[in-house]
């Protein structure tokens, strides 16, 4: 790790004003410090967001508001989240470990960098870190990496669980920068790698995520998150699925399906959603929809099994809702 300055602003405008080249915001630090220890990130200064009072959790009939600095553990345990947005609580509880969830924030979780092992070792070239350097993962160890939305430059996945649930529940990310506040649907927040894998989200360097908004809905209440991995706990997803259904008299009125661990963004499976709506909420419908969830998949050398596995995760998650 390289030496850095620590700046501790006490209000949002001061924090935004403090941002400059080579500087980084820090929330819980659980990801940023790992990257700094590996010399992947070498900021000259950290701007600590802790004192900005952005850690509130609020819920009313209209929806859920998660302050960006709310701890993962607190959000997961919140009664309203558990009752009205179970996929969010389940996704958070499947992430990391209790210790990490006590430190890590939901805003920081949205911005966690990929777990691609080449990205996290400065000895390897990596297009995401250095444009044009090359991507050793495409011909190398890519069992964990993308089967959807990858490019010739990068096949990294976004590793976080929470955003997958947020994608299914159509959350909005609220950001504040020098030019004011922006609200972006989570489906537009993440970018696919294309030829610029270093550009992962639409967030500008001097913008701060202040809040995540999740609209209340019948399907949010009937939602679930299933995460599949090698180890029983404390591991990133091989694949994951967040699903939500509005079922009326046994028929599906609305459906949301998102996949995790398969792409650089939470992957909305629109074809699977379409196959669910208007159908009976039963195993046969779920199996048909699940088979469509990975449409367009292009696995790398070692992760072909993830295509089938992702479909199974969808079927499992849907099955858990009825």
């Amino acid at each position, binding site marked *: 790790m390289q030496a850095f300055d620590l700046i501790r602003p006490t209000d949002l405008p001061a924090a935004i004003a403090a941002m400059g080249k080579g500087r980084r915001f820090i929330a819980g630090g659980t990801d940023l410090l790992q990257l700094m220890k590996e010399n992947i990130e070498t900021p000259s200064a950290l701007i600590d967001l802790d004192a900005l009072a952005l850690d509130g959790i609020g819920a009313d009939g209209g929806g859920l508001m998660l302050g960006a600095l709310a701890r993962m553990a607190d959000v997961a345990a919140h009664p309203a989240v558990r009752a009205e947005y179970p996929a969010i609580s389940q996704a958070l509880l499947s992430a990391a470990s209790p210790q990490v969830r006590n430190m890590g924030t939901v805003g920081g979780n949205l911005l966690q960098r990929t777990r691609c092992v080449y990205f996290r070792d400065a000895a390897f070239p990596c297009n995401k870190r250095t444009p044009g350097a090359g991507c050793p993962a495409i011909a*190398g160890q890519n069992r964990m990496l993308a089967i959807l939305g990858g490019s010739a430059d990068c096949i990294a996945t976004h590793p976080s669980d929470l955003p997958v649930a947020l994608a299914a529940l159509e959350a909005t990310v609220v950001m504040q920068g020098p030019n004011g506040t922006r609200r972006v649907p989570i489906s537009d927040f993440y970018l696919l790698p294309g030829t610029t894998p270093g550009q992962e989200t639409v967030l500008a360097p001097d913008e701060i995520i202040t809040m995540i908004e999740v609209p209340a809905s019948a399907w949010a209440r009937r939602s679930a998150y299933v995460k599949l991995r090698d*180890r029983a706990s404390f591991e*990133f997803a091989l694949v994951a699925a967040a699903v939500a259904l509005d079922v009326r008299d046994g028929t599906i009125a609305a459906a949301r399906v998102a996949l995790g661990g398969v792409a650089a963004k939470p992957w909305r499976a629109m074809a699977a959603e379409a196959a669910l709506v208007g159908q009976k909420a039963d195993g046969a419908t779920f199996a048909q929809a699940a088979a469509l969830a990975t449409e367009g998949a292009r696995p790398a050398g070692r992760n072909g099994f993830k295509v089938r596995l992702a479909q199974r995760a969808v079927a499992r998650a849907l099955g858990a809702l009825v």
Partner: protein
Amino acid sequence: MGIIGAPIARVDGRAKVTGRARYAAEAAVPGAVHAVLVQSTIAAGVVLAVETAAAEGMPGVLAILTPQNAPRLADVRPQAQLVPNPTLQDATVAYNGQTIAVVVAETLQQAEAAAAHVRARYRADEAITEMGDDLADAYVPKNFRNGMRKPDSARGDADAAFNAAPVQISATYTTPVEHHNPMEPHATIARWDGDRLTVWTATQYVSGARATLARLLGIDAGNVRVICPFTGGGFGCKGTTWPPAVLAAMAARSVNRPVKLVLDRRQMYTSNGFRPRTLQKLRLGATPDGQIVSLRHDGFTQMSLGDFGEFAEPVGLASEMLYAVPNAAVTHRLVAVNQGLPTYMRAPGEASGSFALESAIDEMAAALNMDPLDLRLRNYAESDPHENRPFSSKALRECYRAGAEAFGWAQRPLAPRCLRDGDVLVGWGMATALYPINRSAAQATLRMGADGRVFVRSGTQEIGGGTYTTMAQVTAEALGVPVGQVTAQLGDSAWPHAPVSGGSQTSASVLNAVVAAADALRARLAALAGLDARQVQLAAGTLVGPDGTRLRIDVLLARHGLDTIEATAESVPGDEKQRFSLHSFGAHFVEVQVDPAIGRIRIARHVGAFDTGRVLNARTARSQAIGGIIYGYGMALLEKTEVDAETGRYVNANLSDYLVPVNADVPDIVTIFVEKPDRNANPLGVKGLGELPTVGVAAAVANAVYHATGRRVRDLPIRVEDVLA
């Protein structure tokens, strides 16, 4: 039950969980500065130059050792148990992650920051980065088992018997590179006082570290003291004194300050050995009624192309003797690649070899349509068929029986895919465990005070197995005092010599020395009292004579003007190795649940039954058994060090991407000890337990997965994609 065997809580447990147990990196050494390693990013070639100018100008930097400027060592020829390289003695690079520089700075942060600015220029040569399936260049080990065993053995005619056998199994199994991953990283603090060197280091062998440091640094062993009161796990990677300890001493001499060098987790994958990849070809031939007439085990294991010495994983030794097979052939070959030197890792040879052997036995049972336990019993070896000697003791049949009964093995349907729980497939598998009984010369000192307090001291190590506790227990029983009155001291090369805490030999070596020292102490007390040593006993602070009269020890000592009385003794192996085949045994019975739709494998139940001779402490013994079994789960389902084929660099050298089991992976484990003290092996009758419980676990799990799914997985670890429907 006396004090020996009692389930006494670890005497050092409280210190460990409250942080008061001081590990190597925590020793308070005033004025210590910090060293950080810089490691290569190519797999083969030469370091043309290490560019240090930028780093040298950074705050706090005191020195940067490189192949160009590092002090020369006295002797860099590799020998058995002595790994002198890589220690910056030359510029060749033989693997990715080889140490090429050491940065020393006032603080750890400064040293780490500067290390990131050290750049190397290389001439990169073509590298063989992985041991693949091409075995054309395999060669015979030059120094197999340090010359104690032959790499190849044969009895009868295995090939002819195989060809004639009506039922044949022929299969290839592989196990990947695995790393020990002790919680405590390698750590050394080195301090010179003139030409005397004191080293605090994380080790399984304080006197081995002393010998290695003395030899490489060219100083007298009497001038080196190695201290290690606690080792935070080793599993074999702290048995040898690896280069970082030497580099710390070199750096300390260079900067004339005490130097602390702690490896980071990534460096723990490239600096202190690993379990090598193995490829094992098994051939079994049997008669239709299940007599195995031929067994052939050809083992190929990964070695290093570097000039670091030799290590051969002895995968076939168990195959030589576990079953009463008339025709057997075993070979060991090495395949050298551009990786570091492999080393001992918990049950080296037996753990990886038994995966192949005990899987093949299960395959044979399936081919014969026979219960796998019946097949093993049908071929039970009453004496060692390889060494042609009786066993010192063998209660394997009792382990099979007790384990099978506790598990309910008799209910097992013969065919796979018969047990289900809803959509989840259930499978039952078993395998045999075995491990040699080892013992080396060891010394111990006992000192008893007039106040009744006893100190027992030996230059052995506590690596997590409970040595402080068992030393105190054996001492207490031998001297007739409560355990609470005994203080055990270990982990200092200045103390009576003890062997490496490896090969599961600590109890058999050190505790027999403690017993011998107690005998010597009793003799000294008897002499003071004018009694015949053979006729006295010690009990509750008194000397009990042949007629039952009791003489208080404090009174006896006072009478002779003594505050304390002390005795040192050595215990050495006898001729038991010539007379007996020495092994501990066990059996694993495992239930797995496989959810084929999502490729999930979970271990649901486990019964492990062990013939480990005398049990010294029922509590620490169970803890060792559970720990060993969980180590086996890692091997079966999770652990694999992944190499980037292009660069030969490990890509998952951290505890996030290299998976070891967590609590959620572990079921309730039943452990059974078939307790039969083995006095043919050593006076205390202990057989050793550190490694035995790991052996066979991977095969038992693989066999259970087969029974659940009908799929035979021959390459470890068994993962989602192997069982996904």
